[in-house]
């Protein structure tokens, strides 16, 4: 082994060089990364640590990136919560007919990926007389409402004790003062632990860069809600905070043809949601898990 050290060393150097070149070639697809990220994205701080000026710079950069990648001029705002507001949602299962217009409204409002027809809402067709989700079916494809069925839309329950924010290793998701659970799409590392932790199938992962034609983009966007999400991060329903924090109603509610959906500020004694919570026998999904949802269900009778 020691007779010809120089030849051996030369061969090793050659081997190492070839290996390094092969490694560089193997990783060459990473050159496409500028499609999904940028230096500004890489260096960006956590949402809650950005100053006003830094936030504005981030918003302008995101608008520019949307323009470059999607060919559409959009406005991205940072809409903050209002003090004295606690949002809650209630859904009347007696009048929901399972038309899934809420699903479509969510799809459009929140700039979801078009090919997968992504949405934050899933509607379960349930068998009358049973609350057993195992008997439920989300893939129904017939005229609604069907005989002997009722319909249960499920979206983020905006839990007061959210299992999803607890598990996040980098605090990329948290509960806002008005009760809405949000994700900083520019901080999420895409480990999907929150998706495993959620008992309501409320979270979605961007398995690829969302595809959406420029003409179909909703240009009224906000940082924490409906701006087009980056590839490789988790997203979720935000009660349309870019609308609701400015006094408008969630897109799913506006789309509902039967008035099954009730939304509002529970701290306002005159709100509809307050009336429902006080006068209807409401229930929450999977109460035994202790998640304390802000999303309530009730039957009219």
């Amino acid at each position, binding site marked *: 082994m020691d007779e010809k050290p120089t030849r051996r060393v030369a061969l090793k150097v050659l081997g190492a060089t070839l290996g390094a070149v092969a*490694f560089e070639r193997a*990783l060459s*697809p990473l050159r496409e990364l500028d499609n999904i990220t940028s230096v500004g994205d890489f260096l960006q701080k956590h949402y809650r640590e950005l100053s006003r000026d830094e936030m504005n710079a981030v918003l302008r950069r995101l608008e520019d990136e949307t323009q470059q990648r999607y060919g559409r001029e959009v406005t991205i705002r940072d809409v903050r919560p209002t003090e004295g507001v606690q949002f809650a949602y209630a859904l009347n299962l007696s009048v929901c007919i399972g038309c899934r217009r809420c699903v479509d409204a969510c799809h459009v409002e929140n700039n979801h990926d078009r090919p997968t027809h992504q949405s934050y809402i899933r509607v379960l067709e349930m068998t009358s007389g049973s609350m057993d989700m195992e008997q439920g079916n989300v893939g129904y494809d017939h005229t609604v409402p069907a005989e002997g069925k009722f319909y249960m839309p499920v979206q983020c329950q905006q839990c007061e004790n959210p*299992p999803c924010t607890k598990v*996040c290793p980098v605090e990329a998701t948290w509960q806002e003062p008005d009760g809405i659970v949000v994700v900083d799409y520019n901080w999420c590392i895409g480990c*999907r632990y929150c998706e495993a932790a959620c008992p309501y199938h409320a979270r979605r992962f961007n398995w690829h860069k969302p595809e959406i034609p420029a003409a179909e983009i909703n240009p009224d966007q906000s940082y924490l809600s409906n701006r087009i999400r*980056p590839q490789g991060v988790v997203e979720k329903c935000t009660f349309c905070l870019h609308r609701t924090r400015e006094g408008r109603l969630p897109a799913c509610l506006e789309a509902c043809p039967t008035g099954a959906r009730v939304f509002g500020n529970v701290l306002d004694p005159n709100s509809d949601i307050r009336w429902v919570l006080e006068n209807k026998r409401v229930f929450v999904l999977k109460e035994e898990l202790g998640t304390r949802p802000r999303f309530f269900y009730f039957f009219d009778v």
Partner: protein
Amino acid sequence: MAHSGVPHHLSYPRFLLKVLDRATDGTWRFYAWMFVLTAIALVGANTWAWQVARGMAVTAMSDHVSWGLYIANFTFAVGLAAGGVMMVIPAYLYHDEDMHDVVIIGELLSVAAIVMALGFVVVDLGRPDRFWHMIPGLGKFHWPVSMLTWDVIVLNGYLAINLHVCGYLVYTRYRGERPDPRWYLPFVFLSIIWAISIHTVTAFLYSGLGGRPFWNSALLAPRFLASAFVTGPAFIILSLQLVRRFTAFKVPEGAIRRLLDILRVAALVNLFMLAAELFTHFYTGGHHAAAVRYLWLGMHGHHELVPWMWTSITLNLGAVAVLLTPSLRERRVVTNAALVAIFAAVWIEKGMGLIVPGFVPSTLHELVPYAPSIAEWKVTAGVWALGLMVFTVALKVGLQAMTGELRAPGAQADLAVEEKEVA
């Protein structure tokens, strides 16, 4: 002790150069083995690079089954790392001399397995470019609330402890010095507790999720440990025989016997706990048992995991029967086949059989099946190849230090035990 006079700042860089030299030297068998592993690792790296650039849609995972083959192998690799401790306990707590001679092999396996475990976490990230968000101080480390941050701590800590113990022993051997127990014994004992912790915390990642009844069981952590003490010893026993065959290193038979004894007990405990879980699920029935029903029997026309599980249990029971039959004990080929079988059985049980049913049926009771894509298999093979490369090179260097082949010029073999080994 002539080398002892050389100061460390001169001796350590020379040591590293020597290690690099020895790590890249070997027979044609060594080069062929490393070439194949490098090729597989490069295929894995390339596929991973595509996955990062084009998105994780190249995997078969979905919002329903949001963890798959990667996290399955991550869990298994953590078990393999913890299993190495089953050499450390007899060697240091029970002063088993035979085991003491080869204990470094267990520690080096832990290093390689942790490298794999960390590799599997990295390839599962949607945004590995944001990795720095998890670095304490620099990013936002959600400790102590998130169990994943605990896992980051215990895995990296375990890696550091084992690197220190192995590195220190190899370096002092290189200098021809007697290792100072104060510099490594406390870390050896720490590593024993730590080994238990890595697999416990990894189990808590899953068992802490109330919305996933299949994982939400207090038995998960004990089961993880029992199966780790099956796969760790199985892998080490096979490795010891390869070491015996391909190197000059003397592997005492007593170490292999002791590991087989440990494995027999661990395998029975593991089967017992599996039976206890199956009873609880099937006898109770209801929603809580849905995932177990899907896993073992299939459900609503879906049977994706059924062949995996029955393969696993068949291999497991067959291997245990062989390992417990006295007349078969002396037949090394049969024993080895049983070890391979039980290793594969646990790989299924703790991999696909553990992760996927956590997601099927989903939290809204939808049944969306999952089978890994080609890309996932390639990346997985790549990480395994990387782990085996680390293990091979670490063994090569570690064992040469033990036999005295890796020694500083002028350093003398002054330890009686070494004289014995070199001879």
